[in-house]
């Protein structure tokens, strides 16, 4: 009876502990993240005081995150209305970016890999976009060609937007950013 009890405790402890640890470090952790509107960032991922879960996540692959002070990466998997980004829809990304020496905005799949679109353009940089009269950005994401700054999407499937700000003073306090300081993501229509 004692052997069965001990086996039960060890099986439960080891099994649950290992499985929960595997799930906890399979993706970027929930805690330590800063949610600013539709955008999510992990400001400490490139800092010396990185939390153990983020460090374990980074250790599981060839990740080279931007260092604190070097830049900041923000990821959006949903639009401003909270709906998941879907390549069957068209989206308009407008607004301003926080002060930075340069930025890039690109679309990837949920694992961070480039999208397989018909036209080879994965992203825009601050030097490449055509700006409006007020200097703000206006990028349209769609499967079919659009006038202006067009970021092509594949025929279907979920995707993410990744905004990278280089040499930005906000990298250490991204959590204090207001949603208005970041580009807005609005769904135009869907097929």
């Amino acid at each position, binding site marked *: 009876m004692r052997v069965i009890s001990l086996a039960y405790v060890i099986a439960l402890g080891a099994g649950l502990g290992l499985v929960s640890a595997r799930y906890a*470090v399979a993706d970027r952790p929930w805690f330590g993240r800063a949610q600013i509107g539709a955008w999510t960032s992990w400001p400490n991922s490139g800092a010396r005081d990185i939390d153990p879960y983020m460090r374990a996540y980074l250790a599981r692959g060839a990740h080279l995150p931007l260092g604190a*002070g*070097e830049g900041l990466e923000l990821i959006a998997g949903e639009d401003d209305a909270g709906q998941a980004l879907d390549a069957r829809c068209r989206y308009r990304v407008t607004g301003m970016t926080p002060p930075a020496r340069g930025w890039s905005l690109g679309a990837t799949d949920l694992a961070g890999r480039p999208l397989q679109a018909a036209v080879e353009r994965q992203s825009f940089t601050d030097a490449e976009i055509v700006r409006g009269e007020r200097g703000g950005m206006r990028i349209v994401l769609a499967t079919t060609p659009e006038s202006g700054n067009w970021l092509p999407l594949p025929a279907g499937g979920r995707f993410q937007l990744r905004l990278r700000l280089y040499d930005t003073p906000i990298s250490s306090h991204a959590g204090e950013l207001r949603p208005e300081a970041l580009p807005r993501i609005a769904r135009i229509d869907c097929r």
Partner: protein
Amino acid sequence: MSAVDQTAMPPAAAPAAQTRTSPWLVRIGRSLLRFALLTLAGLLLAGIVHIVTVFRVPALAARDAATVYAALGMNGHAELVTPPPAGLPAILDADPNSVAAVCSYDLAGGPLRVVARTGSLPLGLTVHRRGGGVAYAITDRAAIRGVLEFVVMTQEQLDDRLAKDEEGETSRELRVVSPSLQGLVVARVAVRRAFDRSEAEAQATGVACGLAD
């Protein structure tokens, strides 16, 4: 009233009823309590296993950037990883609008000196320790007369250097302590326009890294 009821019951009936129900109830109660305590112990053990596993992942990692790129940059200059050399995995979540070159280091042989010349494109240098995590980051804004230079060392090597410094004299050397003996120095250059790529690659691979002494 209860006293009256008890006295009204036949003398042998009460103990008989107790012996019929109580042992089962007691046995089930004890089993449930035992199961709950064992489950609690299992959950406690699960918490310990979870924490130990998460903390051990970086030490046991075999696919982190510092491990997979450990052979790069040994010739005294950073080597491109965008795209990576044949047979090596690509950087995960890499920005297509930046190029990265790496220098692997092992501080067992002594501190590492890193020297980068700035150009027209934004340059960032980061020290990534083995097992994931950035130990230090600096951009070309900190460059003096177009040169960015620092020395990576362990805490013991820093203590030795401080002991050897002339008393009252300020060292001009920028010293960076790496929490691990092995790691990577990453030079990342932002590619603002497609035609900037070759310049960005030349700037990233122009970063020199070699023994400091």
